[in-house]
């Protein structure tokens, strides 16, 4: 629409085209924390996408009660000015939605609204076919980053 543009011209000129960005409430940090030791089964590092500063480590593992979690490390960072960002398990590094067939390549984990360390509790263990974690701007349909879990 920018810059900076009326949004460019009109905004963009600045006006119209100051790009929207993805919420700063209901943080994923409300998720329960692991009990006792956290055993990592797979881990990875985010690769930034879409020109965002996404970075940091991500781990998949379980606590002493065999409850599974996704753990974003203290070094996790992304562009928080955008709004709601979705975190997903994925069968590849590419966000592939297929709502008509129940989105077999995606598993929603929740929304990210802050940087830094955080845990996301899972209902159960996740199949090894889900090989990546994807950070995704739900509204604009733009990837912010992905991490291959190994």
């Amino acid at each position, binding site marked *: *629409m*920018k*810059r*900076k*543009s*009326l*949004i*460019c*011209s*009109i*905004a*963009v*000129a*600045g*006006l*119209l*085209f*100051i*790009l*929207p*960005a*993805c*919420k*700063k*409430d209901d943080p994923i940090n409300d998720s329960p924390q692991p009990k006792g030791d956290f055993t990592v089964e797979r881990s990875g590092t985010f690769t930034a*996408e*879409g*020109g*965002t*500063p996404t970075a940091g480590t991500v781990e998949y593992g379980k606590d002493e009660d065999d409850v599974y979690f996704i753990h974003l490390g203290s070094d996790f960072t992304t*562009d928080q*000015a*955008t*709004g*709601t960002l*979705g975190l997903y398990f994925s069968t590849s590094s590419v966000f592939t*939605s297929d*709502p008509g067939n129940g*989105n077999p390549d995606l598993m*929603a984990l*929740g*929304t990210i609204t802050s940087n830094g360390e955080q845990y996301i509790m899972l209902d159960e263990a996740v199949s090894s076919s889900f090989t990546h974690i994807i950070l995704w*701007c*739900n*509204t*604009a*349909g*733009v*990837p912010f980053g992905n991490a291959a879990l190994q």
Partner: protein
Amino acid sequence: MSLIRNILILLVFVSSTSWAQNGWTRKAKSFYIQGAFATFNTNKYYSVDGDLFDNGSTFHSHAFLLYGEYGIFDQLNVILDVPVIAINYFDNYELAPGVGNVKLGLKYKFFKNFPFALQVDAEIPTDDGFNYSTSKEPDIFGNYNTINVPTSDGEFNFHTTLAVSHATKSGNTFASAYCGANWRTKGFSHQIVAGMELGQRLFNRWYIIGKFRIQEVLIEGSSPNASIFWGEGTTFSQYNFTNIVKLNDHWSVLAGMTDFIGIPSERRNLYDGITAFVGVSVEY
């Protein structure tokens, strides 16, 4: 009406709604005011890396713009550009209205009889760059989403532009070329812009003007907080066609469109689509 005044009306009208620049200035104590409505709708987003994403929600932006010029002296004008209201939203999201950045500038024509001018503008933010909109329904995973759809980028910008123009003796044909820089703050990348325009009078009171411009990154920014959603790293090539009809010596109406293409400057970090606009102006 003099040739210069004739052209000036058209180019001022064009300038405010279509970002062009020219080397003419308004005479002392004369003024020009224009109101225009613009609308833009698309789901095509080009990332900072130039990749196209077009599976997201459609982005809408509608705005009402006011623009004015006043001649302090024959060779010095003050210019004010205010996006009075802008409404940005995505499909199935609540509307998020706001006021755009206010642009206040001075334009100085170096030579009395040659249209070559320098314009310096300060672009003043009207909020902190955050203007959240909430989805009306949960997404396919049951989550309500919010997204920042700012009408202001929350930071000061300073524009400097040099423009030169030429018109035929009859005033039926005129052209301008310009280049300039947008000096951003808060660690955003500075930008460079360059463009040209060509205007032609087709009938007694009907003019058509074609414009083309590019924007590139001049100096990369340094702040990790410079969000892509405030135009960071935006580059583009853009064209525009504007029709102007002079109703009488003082009032005119205009309508036109502008759009992006991929050469010579790539589309990066922008929503790609056609902007349509209509407006009316008065000058004395």
